[in-house]
């Protein structure tokens, strides 16, 4: 990197010059990084967007065999009151028959098996599956033909995983807090 000393009339120490090059280069890289971070990070969810991340719901609003759709984090949330027949159908399925194996008991709260809470966004490309349709009586996604069962598990179609179960907790016997 350093040039022969005689070109500069014997002045200067090549090591010092190298140090200045490297220090200047490092400072430039650091400066670019410091500029890029805020410019990129501003596109991530803002504080108020994150603040809307949880919601509460009164389960007594859903009647048996029906589903209520509410909006949560900009996406639909399915809250389904399953009939005993639907619960039995979900529990009888062998795990080996599933594309994304998960027991029905892992997708609901013990003792509250009738209430199934799911993010209503197809795991393929995010369309909203329609209630009670498809080969398994759960949901059917009209966009690319994914069939979900009464536990919201993918059975047939291009979706790679089961409908997502959001994190939620029971505040009272009939009140849940989602997110």
């Amino acid at each position, binding site marked *: 990197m350093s040039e022969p000393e005689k070109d500069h009339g014997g002045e200067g120490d090549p090591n010092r010059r190298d140090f200045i090059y490297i220090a200047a280069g490092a400072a430039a890289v650091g400066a670019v990084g410091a500029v890029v971070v805020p410019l*990129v990070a501003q*596109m*991530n*969810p*803002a504080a108020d*967007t994150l603040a809307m*991340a949880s919601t509460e719901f009164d389960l007594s609003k859903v009647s048996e065999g029906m589903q209520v*759709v509410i*909006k949560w*984090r*900009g*996406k*639909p949330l399915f809250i389904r009151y399953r009939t005993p027949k639907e619960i039995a159908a979900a529990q009888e399925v062998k795990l080996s028959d599933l594309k994304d194996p998960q027991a029905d008991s892992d997708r609901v709260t013990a003792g509250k098996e009738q209430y199934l809470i799911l993010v*209503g*966004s197809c795991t*393929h*490309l*995010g*369309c*909203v599956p329609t209630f009670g349709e498809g080969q398994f009586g759960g949901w059917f*996604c*009209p*966009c*690319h*033909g994914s069939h979900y069962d009464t536990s919201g598990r993918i059975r047939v179609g*291009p979706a*790679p995983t089961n409908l997502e179960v959001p994190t939620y907790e029971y505040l009272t016997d009939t009140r849940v807090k989602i997110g």
Partner: protein
Amino acid sequence: MSEHPSTYDPKTGVEKWLDKRLPIVRLAYDSFVDYPTPRNLNYWWTFGGILSVCLVIQIVTGIILAMHYVPHIDHAFASVERIMRDVNYGWLIRYVHANGASMFFFAVFIHMFRGLYYGSYKAPREVLWILGCIIFFLMIATAFMGYVLPWGQMSFHGAVVITNLIGSIPVIGGPILTWLQGGFAVDQPTLNRFFSLHYLLPFVIAGVVILHIWALHVTGQNNPAGVEIKSKEDTVPFTPYATVKDGLGIIIFLFLFAIFVFFLPNSLGHADNYIPANPLVTPAHIVPEWYLLPFYAILRAVPDKFLGVVAMFAAIAVLFILPWLDTSKVKSMRYRPVMRWFFVIFVVVCLALGWCGAQLPDTPVIPGLPSFNLIDGAFNSYLWLTRFLTLYYFAFFLVIMPWIGLKEEPLPVPASISEAILAEHAKKKG
């Protein structure tokens, strides 16, 4: 041709004064008046000029629409309807802008097929071709984001499906998706940034167009004979020859444009986009705009979600390396008796892919014909037709082009452009 000497002769004192300080008139004169163009250019070469007009129309109408449009999820749809009903001539400006996007893509597809047929991507025009591919990619991004802005059902759910494609990238896909959407779903932040970028990108396109024209003027234009300019007999000045020819092409193109704007303004759109966006209900059949259907078909042809996305992007990426995939020494397919038939099939395949992209994958191609199941779908379905067409699309670039270039016996290529013209004249007379 960079070696083309400037013939600009400033006459008045003002011109001489300016020429010494900023030779901008000289640049324009040398580029668009006295610029030597091959004398055998046909009407397929008028689409460059037509595309420039398209870009100007989109920018002018777009800036006007931005004066009346509100990029907010609660007001976007209503503001577009207000433009249609209440803003003076708003209906006209929006229909020109919306149909203008379709016209732009129609012209760019012809422009690209022309380049493909006449070998305009080959040395020394590789950079010119790649710049064109960049413009095409930017056009797709711009058109997609523009389609989201009216915030109708197709806008919204199209944005959901397309942004979710990015989410399919292993490991980093999820965080990138959230970053892109600015939240946990397509919502206000997404609409707002799409509006910002939709306003920005046309000017980026205009910048790359300038580079595209610069590269064109360094290498000189290709021509139907595919032989380079050798002498002054091979060329005519840009003005009046190319100016008038481009002018006629543009006028005829504007006829077509006007037919759509005034008589069929919604024929290329989807009726569902006149329903305000509802995140809780997805339309029964999601389709992109017609010009993206071939790529959408390729996406759906692959059973794996992530690999489908890879295939869709690869369909565009393969164009960038096209100059190095073609092994033939002959540029124009006029003199390539075998390759031209593969080219014709390629055009048909692209159109067929577009057709397939608009169909539901499970629908039988020939109704009533008995079918059997092949791996994961009925053989007589658009799913399998799309797969065969996708296979040809990639094979055309990756197998046929390198292989035929080596095997094919080309027809005799004329020594020069003027010789090619004289031979054509002799054939017509004799």
